[in-house]
């Protein structure tokens, strides 16, 4: 049945990644931690990569 709602792993991964990313930025803005460019670029790259990887793996045939 199309009415059954399924669990979406990509959204789960993306949600966790976005929450972690936003949380770190929030902590920086509240001056709890200090994020420099040396951390920012890997952080953004990793976040984007994790979301893309989750989407790519979920889109493989058989999933």
């Amino acid at each position: 049945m199309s009415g059954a709602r399924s669990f979406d792993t990509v959204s789960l991964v993306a949600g966790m990644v976005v929450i972690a990313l936003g949380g770190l930025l929030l902590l920086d803005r509240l001056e709890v931690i200090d994020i420099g460019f040396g951390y920012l670029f890997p952080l953004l790259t990793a976040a984007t990569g994790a979301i893309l990887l989750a989407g790519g793996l979920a889109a493989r045939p058989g999933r």
Partner: protein
Amino acid sequence: MTDQDPTNPQDPPAEQGQAGQGEPAPARAEPGAAPDLPDPTPRKLLRSTGDRIIGGVAGGLGRYFDVDPIIVRIGLVALAVFGGIGVFLYLAALLFVPPDDRPDQGAAVGGSRLATIAGAAALGIAAIAALGNGLSFFDAFPFSLVLLAIGGGVLYWLLRDRADEGGAGRIIARLALGVALIIAAGFVAVGAFWASAVGGGAVIAGLVVLIGVLLLLSAFRGGRARWLAVPALVLAVPVGIVSAADINLDGGYGEREFRPTTAAQLAPSYRLGAGAMQIDMRAMKFPPGERRLNVGMGMGQMVLVVPENVCVTADARLGAGYVNVLDRENAGVDVDLRDDRPSVPSEPRLRVSADIGMGALLVVNRPPPDDFEGGPGGRGPGFGPRDKGGPGADGPPFGPRAGDREKEPPLTTARGQAACDRTVADADRASSGGRR
């Protein structure tokens, strides 16, 4: 007569029939066929529906010219990146070259063909204006982005009814929508950047967290809100840049110039949100001993012009940009320049503490000329060294134009550079004399 007559319509080679429907006749001859006979069906340039990534243009060109389509794709991408003409050519091919499975469809995409062509031309011109070398990047970029967004939106509106029909109309409509969405995302990112820089970064970071929560919740409802990851990243990137560079636009905007003539007129600290600030202290007579000066800027260029006899030490931090303190320089991201030379009470010394988000800090003996890229009255942010090779020294917007370096005198004089060394030498001499 041979076994197979290629001119006989009742007995055509297999490739002829395919060519008539879009497949070109291969050059090789079948065994037993008449050799070197001209192909009676002229080759026709058609977009490939079997070998395509977007619209089959590269596949069709590769097949037509009998070269690997990858080579054609590399060429088109190179033309798109270097000047933008590749985008225009691709859109033109989408419009005028029919696909190989619809030989009778022709190049027309409907009654709005003229508007479509005009829209595609506008996109191409805007791309060339944005990426071309003939216009200043900063001058043309905002206008071109607006033109691209409007052109993309208009094109999609014109072709939206044909989006389901397939062919060129569908592809161009989707491309136009993509361009419009990318440009819109750019404006959202710029807005988030400015909002963060004026103190709203925590709010936007909280919004990113909220989007993450919505994404998590959507995971249990079939993942219908996957697309929220894109706006989350669009918001997170500018907040991250503002955070990493520690950009604070408090302090106003514009150009500021100060010329203190006495020690009393020199304030202990100066701050500007964005723009350019120049503090010309050459008319000042610095008393012996150390004088502290704190300067801060969110984005832009800070120029401190000091007398030649004053030793300058600095504790400068830039999120991203270029710092030059009497020819001691550093550039890049997370830039720090610290200089803790020993103090000599009998000599004047200026100790500069600088905190700049993105931009440049110059401590020099001569003010930059008006045509200096990024200087007060200049055009760009001035992230690059001026008088020597180094990061950004090759041209605008991050450095001077090539010919300017030779005719301009150096901003830091030899006397200015030697001031600190002399004070250090005096200190050594004084200490050694004291020991005797």
